[in-house]
């Protein structure tokens, strides 16, 4: 909260004295789509440190994390942005689902409670984004209500969208299905796990954020 307040003050003075506002690139999607893995790949590439911890257990990211002043480079061009990793958006959270990942009952309940707050926070932060990378697991059905709700809300707010069709390293991945379902958006097939096609994603980020 204090951090947000401080960021707002900094942005206010930056704008007052004519400095260009640093834009936020948000990472949105369902739990386990690979948002944090992708945000980490970008932040490690350009800043040498991770933004958060990725895990197979859903809802590992339960708070919005912002990494400021990340200078990314592509084809000799530079861009300074803030990376904002957000908790996965879901319509249901059942603590019993976490028990399958061998979490103790108390830990599972705590995680579920924090996850509900994370979803609310992620939705609130939509208004603060300048560009959003919607991360979709291309090995699963992309046409989910959560993806549609996220994209619809970004469209309603006129926030530019890039779809990162993640997990192309998996056999079941079907990037064409993602493209077919969301033909109005720029879709880049990537693997946040092994970095496949990340250069192409940087190129698109530059095009959208220039």
């Amino acid at each position, binding site marked *: 909260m204090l951090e947000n307040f401080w960021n707002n003050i900094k942005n206010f003075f930056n704008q007052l004295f004519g400095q260009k506002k640093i834009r936020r690139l948000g990472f949105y999607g369902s739990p386990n789509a690979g948002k944090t893995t992708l945000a980490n790949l970008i932040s490690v590439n350009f800043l040498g440190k991770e933004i958060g911890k990725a895990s197979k257990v859903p809802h590992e990211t339960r708070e919005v994390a912002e990494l400021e002043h990340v200078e990314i480079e592509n084809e000799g061009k530079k861009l300074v942005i803030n990376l904002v990793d957000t908790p996965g*958006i*879901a*319509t*249901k*959270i*059942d*603590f019993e689902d976490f028990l399958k990942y061998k979490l103790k009952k108390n830990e599972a*309940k705590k995680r*579920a409670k924090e996850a*509900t*707050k994370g*979803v*609310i926070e992620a*939705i*609130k932060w*939509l208004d603060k984004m300048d560009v959003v990378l919607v991360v979709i697991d291309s090995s699963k*059905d992309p*046409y*989910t*209500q959560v993806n*549609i*709700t996220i*994209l*619809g*809300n970004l*469209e*309603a707010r006129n926030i530019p969208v890039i779809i990162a069709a993640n997990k192309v390293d998996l056999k079941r991945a079907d990037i064409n299905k993602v493209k077919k*379902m969301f033909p109005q958006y720029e879709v880049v097939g990537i693997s946040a796990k092994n970095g496949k096609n990340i250069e192409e994603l940087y190129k698109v980020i530059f095009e959208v954020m220039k």
Partner: protein
Amino acid sequence: MSPKIKKAKKKVDLEFIPFESLKNMTLQKQVKFIIEKTKDDKILIFDSKLTPEDEAKLISETMKHINKNFSGIEICSLYSEKDKDWIDKSKDVIFKLLTGKSRGTSIIGPAKIIKEIKRNPDSISMQMK
């Protein structure tokens, strides 16, 4: 000989609600109405598509109600723009004027009853637990 115990079949309550009946409610009240019904194990079917903002509000409010008895909702909102003639398009405009929503279908139900709602661009299928 021990008596045979028959497992009671789960009753599924479906409610068809014309969105026009909610048009005088604020969004907050509409969302509260939906959540209360789903907490009561009802599956609601509306004759309109929720706006993305409505969906986001519904998801946010649902999160505030999650506890050990209520794990959230399954939701699916559908609207097809394909192959519409001018009559259908006119109906859409009139419907929007009357209710503030787009024509279509929305299904909202409790996650503890509905396993999954699958959607194709033009159809919905619902799988129960």
